[in-house]
């Protein structure tokens, strides 16, 4: 090693190569942020006003008012009913749809319509689906239930089809080799391989349905959401905070039950 080598080594500093694509993307994002903020008319005066309103608002939310607890409990019960029935019906309907959409079991002319159905079920937010069902079946819990059934099919059937596509085909071949009819292949070859994951999907969907069933009421589809929206419109902010606290408590309790269930079926 010569001395000139070491000096160059000392002088050399680590300079990371600039990633121009990333730099330009960051700059564009920054410009966009400024543009949208000006488009939405954001300025310090408005934000200060907002802070004041917010403080006022929080002040009126506290203390939460549980006086009309029977209205509250009624709404929560209806939300739970919607979630439970929608999950049950959704699971029952997802089983056949998921089978039809699995590409390793079914020919293409069957999977395509089934996949289209699943995509159609997933494409809209449950609240929008609920609006359509309110028109179709009138105000009330039925509309909310149907909307969440649609959402459940979109989710469970998709995951179920994917789970079926990942199964090992060896067991299917073995059962087919014994001359079993199609029904037996499904029951003894496919179902045992996917049932464990199916319970996981169901519990996840129950959780998600419970969250959404507290919301579909905003468009008149039953549950606590209607009560919440009405309280907001009448500026009963202390009742609003009571409803919000109960919704959060319900969701947390459901999560706890879910965790116990998952441990049970691990």
């Amino acid at each position: 090693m010569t001395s000139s080598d070491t000096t160059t080594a000392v002088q050399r500093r680590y300079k990371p190569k600039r990633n121009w694509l990333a730099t330009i993307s960051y700059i564009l994002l920054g410009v966009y942020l400024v543009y949208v903020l000006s488009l939405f008319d954001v300025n310090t005066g408005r934000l200060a006003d907002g802070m004041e309103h917010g403080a006022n608002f929080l002040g009126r939310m506290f203390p939460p008012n549980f006086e009309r607890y029977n209205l509250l409990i009624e709404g929560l019960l209806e939300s739970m009913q919607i979630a439970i029935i929608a999950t049950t019906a959704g699971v029952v309907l997802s089983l056949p749809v998921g089978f039809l959409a699995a590409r390793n079991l079914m020919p293409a002319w069957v999977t395509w319509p089934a996949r289209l159905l699943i995509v159609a079920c997933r494409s809209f937010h449950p609240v929008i689906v609920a609006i359509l069902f309110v028109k179709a079946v009138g105000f009330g819990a039925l509309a909310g239930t149907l909307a969440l059934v649609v959402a459940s099919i979109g989710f469970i059937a998709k995951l179920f089809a994917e789970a079926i596509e990942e199964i090992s085909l060896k067991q299917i071949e073995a059962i087919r080799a014994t001359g079993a009819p199609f029904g037996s292949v499904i029951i003894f070859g496919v179902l045992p391989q996917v049932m464990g994951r199916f319970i996981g999907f169901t519990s996840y969907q129950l959780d998600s349905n419970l969250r959404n069933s507290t919301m579909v009421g905003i468009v008149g589809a039953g549950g606590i959401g209607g009560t919440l929206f009405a309280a907001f419109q009448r500026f009963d902010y202390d009742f609003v905070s009571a409803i919000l606290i109960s919704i959060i408590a319900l969701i947390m309790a459901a999560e706890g039950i879910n965790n116990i269930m998952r441990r049970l079926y691990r």
Partner: protein
Amino acid sequence: MSENTANASFMEKRTWSRFTPMERTARFLFYFVTVAAIVVSAQTIEIIPEFLMDAPEQIGDMFNRMWPPALSYYPDSIHEALLETIHIATLGTLIALILAVPVGVMVAENVTKNKFLNWFGRLILVSSRSINSLVWALLFVAILGPGPLAGAFAIAFRSVGFVGKLFGEALEESHKGPIEALEASGSPWFSTMMMGYWPQVLPTFWSVALFRWDINLRESAVLGLVGAGGIGVALNTALELFYWDRVAMVLISMLVVVGLVELLVTQIRKRII
């Protein structure tokens, strides 16, 4: 020992069972509760049979009114509202990213070695996630007044929980090697963050951001129902006036945008991550 086992098998015929009695009882209880919950809900839910009988007719009527979709409504009011929805979703996601980074750092137990801060960060994330974006929108409409800004804040506050949780988990899973090397060289905290952690979590961060942007576009479409701007406002107006052909047009344009965004997101994902 062999004598022992021989003895045991002689004394009692041991049968293999998959679950302990405790587990079996728990499972039985669980099935029982599930079935009971379904039966009770089905019996007590308020469903008016006439409405149910009427449903096919009403659905037919709805589609009749929806067809043909009011194409002329698109340039009139949908286009602008659609752009506003995209802005709400994007601005909301950007604000969420900015807010989620410090919370994610706070939650990651290997970065922030303070139990109280960890717990506090987790509290923020959980409360963000357990309030629906529609409720956040109601709150922000009450605070900031109706308009897209309330929608963007609703989206942002709802997304912080999601992005922050995944970002924190990514931080916790990052490799120790580079960080220990940096610390051994005496680098200050900020440099360790930027040079040690950030490059490791960068791909996760942006893929989570893209994923959340996709979700937010769908969610911001409904915020207008409670007055928080975007396409939901156009939908709500059309619904209240019973212009079903306009409703159909709104739904179709929403579908197209969601589809396009999904294509875009998959493309970006393929290129970058």
